[in-house]
């Protein structure tokens, strides 16, 4: 199960990167990156998973004393949370840039924005 998720995550990353590096439309690049980000999140969560255990929340079902053998690793989850939020930040920023670039040139073709080179 972990492997399935991990493979899925990696495939999503590669697909996202492929889309981002071959689509010349800026918006589509951003969409592709968000797919890749989802892939990363899946990989992260999969790494923390231990078969047959429950969420790292202590309640009636998981008493404090048994926590160490009942719950999965909480660290990757905490990292994913942060990663998701940061990913949103970057995506938002890219979208704002995309809008701005469109305003300047009236196009979203990334190849049109190459005055700076060499």
């Amino acid at each position, binding site marked *: 199960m972990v492997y399935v998720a991990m493979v899925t995550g990696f495939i999503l990353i590669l697909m996202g990167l492929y889309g981002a590096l071959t689509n010349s439309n*800026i918006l589509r690049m951003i969409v592709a990156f968000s797919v890749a980000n989802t892939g990363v999140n899946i*990989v992260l969560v999969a*790494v923390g998973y231990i078969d047959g255990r429950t969420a790292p929340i202590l309640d009636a079902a998981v008493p404090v004393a048994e926590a160490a053998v009942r719950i999965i690793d909480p660290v990757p989850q905490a990292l994913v949370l942060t990663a998701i939020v940061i990913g949103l930040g970057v995506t938002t920023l890219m979208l704002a840039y995309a809008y701005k670039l469109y305003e300047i040139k009236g196009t979203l073709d990334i190849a049109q924005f190459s005055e700076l080179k060499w």
Partner: protein
Amino acid sequence: MVNAIFILVIGLGAAFLLGFLRDKRKLAYVVTLAALVSMAWIAARWLLFFAVDGGARTEIFTAGTLPPFAINLHLGIAEAALMLLVILCGLFSAIYMQNTLMRLGRRMMSVLLVFVMSLCGIILTRDVFNLFVFFELAVIATAGLILLCEDKRTFAAGFKYLIISQIVSILLLVGIIFAYHASGSLNIDDMAAMSSGTLKGVGSLAFFLMLMAIMTEAKPFPANGWALDIYESAHPAFSALFSAAMAGAAAVYAIDKLLLIGASQWLPVVTAIGLLSFVAANLLALVQTNDRRTLGYSSVGQVGLILVVIGQRDILGEHYLYIVGGILLSHAVAKAGLYWLSGLLSQRKLTDWSALRGHPLLIFAFVSFVAMLTGLPPFPSFYAKWDLVMLLAAENRLWILALILIATLLEAGYLFRWFGYIIKREKETDKQILSLASHKLAVVLSTAVISWGLAYLWGELSAHGNLLYALPLLFALSFLLLDQLPARIKNSLSIAGMVAYFMVSYPTYDPLQLIFGAIFLLGSSVILLASYHVSGRRVGFYPSALLMFAGLTLLIVAKDAFHFFAAWEFLTIGSYFLILRGKHSEPHALSYVIFSLGGAFLILAGFALAAQGISPFPLESLAQVAKPIAPWVFLLLAIGFMTKTAVIGLHIWLPGAHAEAETDVSPMVSGILLKAGLFGLMVLLMNMGKQSLYGVELTYVMLWMGALSAFLGNLMAVFQEDAKRLLAYSSIGQMGYALFGLALMNQLGWLMALMFVINHYIYKSMLFLSIGGIAKRTGTRDMYKMGGLIALMPLSFIAVLIGIIAVSGVPPLSGFGGRWIFYNAILESEYRLPMMLIFISGPIAFLYLFRLIHTIFLGQLKDEHRQIKEAPFWILLPQMIYVVALMIFAVVPGLAMRHVDAYLSPFFEGQGLNWEGFTITSHYGYWSPVSIMIVVAVIFATLFAWLLFVNRKAQKVKQFNIVYSAERPFRPETTHFAWNFFAPYRKALGFLMQPYVTRFWETMMDLLHSIADLSRRFYTGNGQTYGIQLLAFVVIVYLFKMEF
């Protein structure tokens, strides 16, 4: 002491606080500055605590829990220093951008604060995921700060950066989570402490991904197109931050931290990436015309160099911090300074920087920054590079050493070319390019002050002693402060200073040092007399000239390799500034400085190879260098020194540099500076003696080089039309004689070389001065445009006459003495073939010397020259002194030479001359200068009297106008008899004159430029391509790493 976490808290708190200050921009700005100042204050306090009080590094725990369960921060001297650098850079940029920030409002200010804060976070944190968070903050803040610039293109640059950072964060996150899985911790020290077993397999791959991701932020070649676009288009104050603080401090420190985990097996990878960036970026920068993009390339290169140092830290040991700090701080200060400087100009071409001319302070700042970048003394990068090169050579990592030096030379090439543009290119007067807002000016100038402060600091920390304590250097630098005084006062001060210094120090000199010291100090004082003819302030002349003389003075007293090399660099740079002052000298000065620095780097490599880690390395220890490397050391040093003496093949810089220099500069660089090379060769030969490589005796090769230089130098002089170029080529020939003499490796040869040192100084200085005076009066240096000047300029004529007699080595003047010793020396040794060349070059010299006097002084006076006067008094005065000196030296050469002879005799047994009274005896005969003088004087007087008697009825012929048959020739000068005077010889010997060497070097340059021009097209400007390049970079590094 304030908890260092307050650096982060204050930065963030102020950024949040700004949300309240929507319409109070002034207040917001004040809050921003206050926050930065207090952050800087905390960092500075800690730095002092570590540096002065010797405090131990401290840990800052968060959340009341110990790592690895909570995030912790480390604070040591490196962290404190880097944070101070980052915050000060931010503060300066904030001051610099005052208007922009006020216009854009509090939002940008808070972004700036968060940017600085996040860089500090990157430096402090010891947790990989926390590192990721701070990096993302820095990335996003970058995307915001890019907007500071009005340039529409920046939007595209920002977007490209975001594309890259998306890829980076994907790699980093995957790396982090697998590293966590492998080690069970996110703490860097924790991971590092685990056995290296965790880094096998998955752990190693995870580390690879993390390293590549962080590495990308250091903008390695070739995954750095986006960075160059940002550098080119962003606000210069932001580029300063981006280069100095983000890439040059935070990112490289993060890599340094990460490598604690990866340990030694990853160091070669970092070294390789760094080297590639350093070489490639500097190569590509050669063909840039945009100033900020050039700086961007240079920045990529410098960060590459820092990476190399980080990658070599396994051999740097306790010197690591000193070396990496020296290079890192030099880069940061210089690059930020240059970016801030670029913000004063409104045009972006490198040549537009000529607008700086007339602003000595700005030029001084520019020079300081450029010197810092290229690692010239006395800046920290010089000390650091020296130590680095020494250690690399000691560990036999010669490829790295060679590539570093080559790339540094490339960098020096375009930076000094740029400097040439500033000094020499035409200003566009109709455009107002420069705008000098006082706050921007303050930032630039205080950065320059900081650069010198760091120079002092690194000198203090150096194991070799502080170069800034050297009196001659201080004397030269003090003229920077006196530059507002009139030239004549400065001239008097210089002469007084140099004479006084000589008087004080000569008792400590040995005879060899005495000869060179007298020429370097007294000799230059005599030449400086000529400088009295210049009125006005002559800004920049005295600091440059005195820097050169300081270098020369320090050179002869240098005891160890470090000080020798430092002095060598000083004299190179000083003379470069001097030469650059000539009217048309821009390309020549550039080729001079490139050849000189190239030579200097060979010398550096030679010393490094010889020292094998011994520090300090006394020059005498050259004698103890062991066999397999000794010849290589010899070769490197010899080529380095021979670059300075312009041996044939490495001579192409000389004619232009010497001929285009100012009237009083030509004698300095020709009469005095060339001797530095000879001095170096003497030190080398005295200590290392004969060396052979692959069965070839190297001194024998030098002998041939000397003979060829003498022959070809003289031959080329024959065909010159320009009198100063003629003298310059003649110098190549003369230096060839000296080299030949030294390479003979017998006492007479050496004596003759030393004779040459003195003679050449006197007559070449004299000739350059008189020709310079004539050129000044006639307004041309082409000989065929002159003629008949003997009546108008009799004193110049006498000087030239005496000069050429001395040069050609006919009795009775000292040139003959030189020749006499010389022929004795040749007879002592058995090298007949090169000897023939030397003999032939004697008469050849006569050809061009004859022309000098014949074409300029005899013949018909040109119409346009009828009104001219004798050369100015101050130019004549030293010439007359030289005439007297030549006479004295001709009659009593023993005054100086017998001491030297005695000094040399321990080196060569039983070959000395016999000095008795006024007669000198060798195995082959004797030479009595006094009697020769008397004989010649009698013959001369008799002939002269006879001529007068015969010619007493001579008639004066009036000049008549030649009318061409109703037609003007296409090139009028071709009809002049003195034009192409030696055309017949050219037919015979012209094949030797083909500029093979020039063509060779030109082809090399063209090749470099074409490579650079082709390869930079790689940066297509398409953000997607940049993304692919990053991907390719990662994959290729991975494949390489797997190979090994």
